[in-house]
């Protein structure tokens, strides 16, 4: 056969396989408001940059008549391309082929591209759209999941791993996304759960829709499993591209430096924070008044909103921001917000991203539900994460820093490199109201007018202790600064700390409270 003919044959074969599950299945996919797997990959990566591998892989199942079934590409697309002109590895499950079910060869394709990503030190993006294990392939299918989870763990902290949930992701399949760094979900399209509505109905007789059980909103607001929420697949891909502009390609690199732009003029740092520390404000306005171009990419925007985390640039360099949010629950630390901050701190530490902490919190949230939910061990995560982190750490105490909250939020004692405080800072063992009630209990109780006396004593305590100068006099705060000076000092601090080198005692790994 002449080469020309052979080339034609190749083209024919390619075309056939690229049709995935065939026209009908594609039509069905589109009617659900979803793109096909191939369309998704092409929309995600730079134009013309995608190259596919393992197009001609076929399954090897023989039981249950599987031998006669052709499953193009075995229900998954793998390949490499570029995003922001840097290489990335990607896999996308193809729901049109046997419901994107995971069989042995399907898993082998995914693990192949995972191995590539790890070896070549580039981000791995996994697009999940699968009905789950391919039951006909039995234990081989389970083995496939296991091999994927193992590689997720191996690659964790080495290369960025991103999971995009664009369809069902149920049962064991959910654990690959759960092991990765960032999970993206899309309204009405993403569904994640361990046991679906049908099983719940059979076992419990309880009826719940897929959306209410494990839809995009549920995972963005209630469970905290998702990090980014989008209204459409297009918006989701833009979010991924944006995230990738902020983070380094692997743990031996720094995030790409960007052109420096000053914060936008509309965020006036002197006008954001109310003087009365019991009045709320949006801490994100302070972040936007500090970071380049006021460009702040918030992570887990809808979950545990009393803590704000995300990426912003200081003088062109990506920093991870960890901030209490006085706007919500007065910015307290609780089970969820500790968890949220701790994981983010570990991400930043793993990927050489300096951590900037903005402090304004009344402490840990009191309550039976919190105690019983394990606020002790969850709260401990944040202490662990800060103490363990060796990247440059700069802490700015904006207003309240009381009690355990003061220690936890990147204090000097957990080895922050620089601790600055605004003149509005109140660094104390507890809030003036609570402290006065304890310290001056006798005077208050025995006074003719206890309420008057209490007010007097609260004022007295406030004046003496609710300020930054006591902590500054011990060297726990390096400088008391004007809000206006924050950005300038941050730029300087991060620049000074850029060659920071510290090492702790030799160990295999710690035993964090998770």
């Amino acid at each position, binding site marked *: 056969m002449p080469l020309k003919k052979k080339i034609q044959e190749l083209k024919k074969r390619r075309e056939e396989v690229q049709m995935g599950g065939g026209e009908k299945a594609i039509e069905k996919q589109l009617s659900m408001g979803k793109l096909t797997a191939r369309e998704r990959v092409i929309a995600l990566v730079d134009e013309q940059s995608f190259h596919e591998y393992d197009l001609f892989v076929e399954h090897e199942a023989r039981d249950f008549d599987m031998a006669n079934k052709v499953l193009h590409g075995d229900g998954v697309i793998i390949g490499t391309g570029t995003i922001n002109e840097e290489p990335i590895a990607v896999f996308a499950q193809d729901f049109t082929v046997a419901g994107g079910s995971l069989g042995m060869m399907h898993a082998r394709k995914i693990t192949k591209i995972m191995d590539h990503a790890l070896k070549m030190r580039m981000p791995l993006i996994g697009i999940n759209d699968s009905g789950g294990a391919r039951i006909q392939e039995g234990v081989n299918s389970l083995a496939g999941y296991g091999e994927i989870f193992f590689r997720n763990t191996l690659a964790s902290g080495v290369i960025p791993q991103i999971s995009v949930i664009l369809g069902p992701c149920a049962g064991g399949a959910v654990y690959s996304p759960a092991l990765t760094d960032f999970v993206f979900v899309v309204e009405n399209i993403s569904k994640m759960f361990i046991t679906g509505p049908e099983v719940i109905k059979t076992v419990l007789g309880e009826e719940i829709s897929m959306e209410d059980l494990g839809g995009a909103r549920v995972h963005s607001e209630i469970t905290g499993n998702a990090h980014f929420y989008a209204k459409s697949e297009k918006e989701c891909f833009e979010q991924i591209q944006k995230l990738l502009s902020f983070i380094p390609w692997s743990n031996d690199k720094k995030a790409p430096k960007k052109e420096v732009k000053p914060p936008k003029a509309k965020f006036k740092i002197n006008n954001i924070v109310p003087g009365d520390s019991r009045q709320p404000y949006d801490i994100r306005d302070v972040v936007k008044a500090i970071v380049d171009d006021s460009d702040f990419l918030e992570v887990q925007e809808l979950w545990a909103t009393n803590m704000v985390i995300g990426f912003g640039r200081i003088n062109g360099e990506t920093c991870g921001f960890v901030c209490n949010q006085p706007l919500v629950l007065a910015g307290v630390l609780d089970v969820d917000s500790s968890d949220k901050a701790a994981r983010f701190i570990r991400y930043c530490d793993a990927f050489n991203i300096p951590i900037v902490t903005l402090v304004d919190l009344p*402490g840990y949230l009191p309550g039976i539900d919190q105690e019983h939910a394990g606020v002790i061990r969850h709260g401990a995560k944040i202490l662990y994460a800060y103490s363990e982190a060796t990247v440059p750490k700069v802490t700015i105490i904006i207003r309240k820093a009381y009690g355990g909250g003061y220690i936890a939020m990147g204090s000097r004692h957990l080895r922050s490199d620089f601790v600055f405080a605004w003149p509005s800072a109140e660094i104390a063992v507890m*809030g003036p*109201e609570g402290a006065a009630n304890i310290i001056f209990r006798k005077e208050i109780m025995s006074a003719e007018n206890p309420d008057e006396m209490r007010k007097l004593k609260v004022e007295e305590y406030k004046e003496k202790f609710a300020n930054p100068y006591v902590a500054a006099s011990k060297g726990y705060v390096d400088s008391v600064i004007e809000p206006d000076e924050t950005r300038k000092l941050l730029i300087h601090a991060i620049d000074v700390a850029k060659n920071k080198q510290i090492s702790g005692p030799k160990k295999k790994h710690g035993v964090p409270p998770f």
Partner: protein
Amino acid sequence: MKNTGDISKGTKDKDTSGNKLQFETFVILSAKYQTLLTTKYKNRKKWEPVNEKHVLSFIPGTILKVFVSDKEKVKKEQPLLVLEAMKMENTMFAPFDGTIKKVYVSTGDKVPKGTLMIEFE
């Protein structure tokens, strides 16, 4: 339940996109803060002390058998019912000698976790 957040309504201010924000008073260690409350916080489960006279389902499942009925006297460790869950048949036993006040479930019932199945007098 001291210090769990004594809440009284108040209104003030707008967010950056101009939506009105409903601040509430939130008390922590005697200090009253103006802030927003999350749905999760508002919906948090109220704690209730354990009632030893209540036999609750410890796992969601199906009632396979019920061995006792209302007003029946039972001895400690006498089987009360079988609750099938996750492919296991779990026999639940009387925690002490006593009289059954009421049996709330019957064979075939599907019960969520924490359902009151049997009450002692």
